[in-house]
């Protein structure tokens, strides 16, 4: 059982990042416990996605520290050094970002075999189980372009899980989906959260955030304005910017 005494799995300390003259992150600090589910909400351009991209090293930071497990992310500067981190931190994107020229099964197997050098037969067994988990058994030899958005996103989640990560970062994964497909994707995430997978979600699905999150962070203009358990954050927000935001989106 994980206890609150153990050090958090992800710890960001005073992270700053600028793109050109525009400072996207102005000193972000947050932590995520092992097995925890954290949602990041906030207006567009407030730096939510950048936070996720910094956690897995896709976006290098200017200052501050990011620790994931035993890795100090800001010190991993080469592709090779980033591999163990990316083994532990998987990411699911708004546009699915699947490999269009490979079948569903190949999408799941490629990285574990080509990057982690795992045995192909073992990976295939695991991939079949994962496809069953995301309710896509039978689609093994389909290409991503032949699937609906909701199905593609579930393939992307299965592909992330195939890396056997400790954390999955979800970057607005339902934003590009038709409303009826949102629920099928969210139910997969809900299952993962219930199983104890550490999840960090950037989302506009407030009700979902309220339901699954242990802690919610509200970002605005590159700072975390308010954070806390969803019950307090959604029901009795204290910051006027958060109140204003919730009025608009709820």
């Amino acid at each position, binding site marked *: 059982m994980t206890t609150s005494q153990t050090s958090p799995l992800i710890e960001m300390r005073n992270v700053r990042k600028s793109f050109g003259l525009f400072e996207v992150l102005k000193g972000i600090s947050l932590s995520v416990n092992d097995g925890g589910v954290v949602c990041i909400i906030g207006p567009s351009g407030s730096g939510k996605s950048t936070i996720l991209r910094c956690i897995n090293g896709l976006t290098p930071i200017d200052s501050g520290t990011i620790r994931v497990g035993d890795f100090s992310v800001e010190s991993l500067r080469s592709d090779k050094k980033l591999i163990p981190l990316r083994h532990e931190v998987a990411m699911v994107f708004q546009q699915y*970002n699947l490999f269009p020229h490979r079948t569903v099964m190949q999408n799941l197997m490629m990285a574990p075999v080509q990057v982690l050098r795992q045995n192909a037969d073992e990976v295939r067994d695991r991939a079949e189980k994962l496809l069953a988990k995301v309710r896509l058994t039978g689609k093994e030899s389909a290409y991503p372009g032949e699937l609906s958005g909701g199905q593609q996103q579930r393939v992307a989640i299965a592909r992330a899980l195939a890396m056997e990560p400790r954390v999955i970062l979800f970057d607005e994964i339902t934003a590009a989906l038709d409303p009826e497909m949102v629920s099928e994707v969210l139910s997969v995430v809900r299952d993962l959260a219930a199983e104890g997978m550490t999840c960090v979600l950037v989302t506009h699905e407030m009700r979902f955030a309220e339901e699954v999150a242990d802690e919610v962070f509200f970002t605005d203009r590159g700072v975390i304005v308010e954070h806390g358990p969803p019950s307090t954050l959604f029901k009795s927000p204290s910051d006027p910017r958060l109140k204003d935001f919730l009025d608009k989106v709820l």
Partner: protein
Amino acid sequence: MTLDFSWLGDPLYQQWLITGIGTTLLMSLLGILLMLAIGIVGALFLHFRIPVLETITTVLVELFRNTPPLVQLFFLYFMLSSVGLSLTDPVTGRTVPLFSGFTCAVLSLGLYNGALAVEIIRSGLIGVPSQTVEGARSLGYTRFQTFRHVELPIGLRLCMPAMTNNVVSLIKTSSQAALVAVADIMYGATQIMVETFRNMEVMLLIWALYVVIASLVVVLMRRLTSMIRIPGYGVDQA
């Protein structure tokens, strides 16, 4: 004017033409392989902006793209042997050019169309969505692995129409090899014309032969394009 094709019955001429077709096809095939290799390696240098190699690639691409292929062929054939690139035959003791006419023709085709291929493949790579690349990066793929397993396979598919043009252009350009005494179709035709003076008829046949070869290659390339087409991807529903 009457056309007389009776010379076609001469076994010697038939022999010349068949050998010529074989030589043209072999030369073109080797040229295509070299062209692809140059295209991929050059596109890789440009894509990764590898210092020095990127600049060299750009200079060479401009040099080969912007000079006539015939000039390049003559340069390779005459200049390289005169600057001393020759071998001494161990058996006869004679000095032979390091590059035979055939080798020079293949090199010239590979370099000229390879320079075009660099730009064609690069345009295909640019067409690969950045999200797809990011998906690979987030799974731990290094830059080179991403290139090899994701960007290149998708980019090559995207550039198939332009690459088909380049392949056909290469086959047609191969006819200039006759000028450095490579016994291709064109060379055979010239020989036949010299002996029969049936210039019009021979040229009509040569014209038809090139049309047939090029058309077959276009059909093959279309087949290949639809074989490797990504199901449900893009608008190319061939």
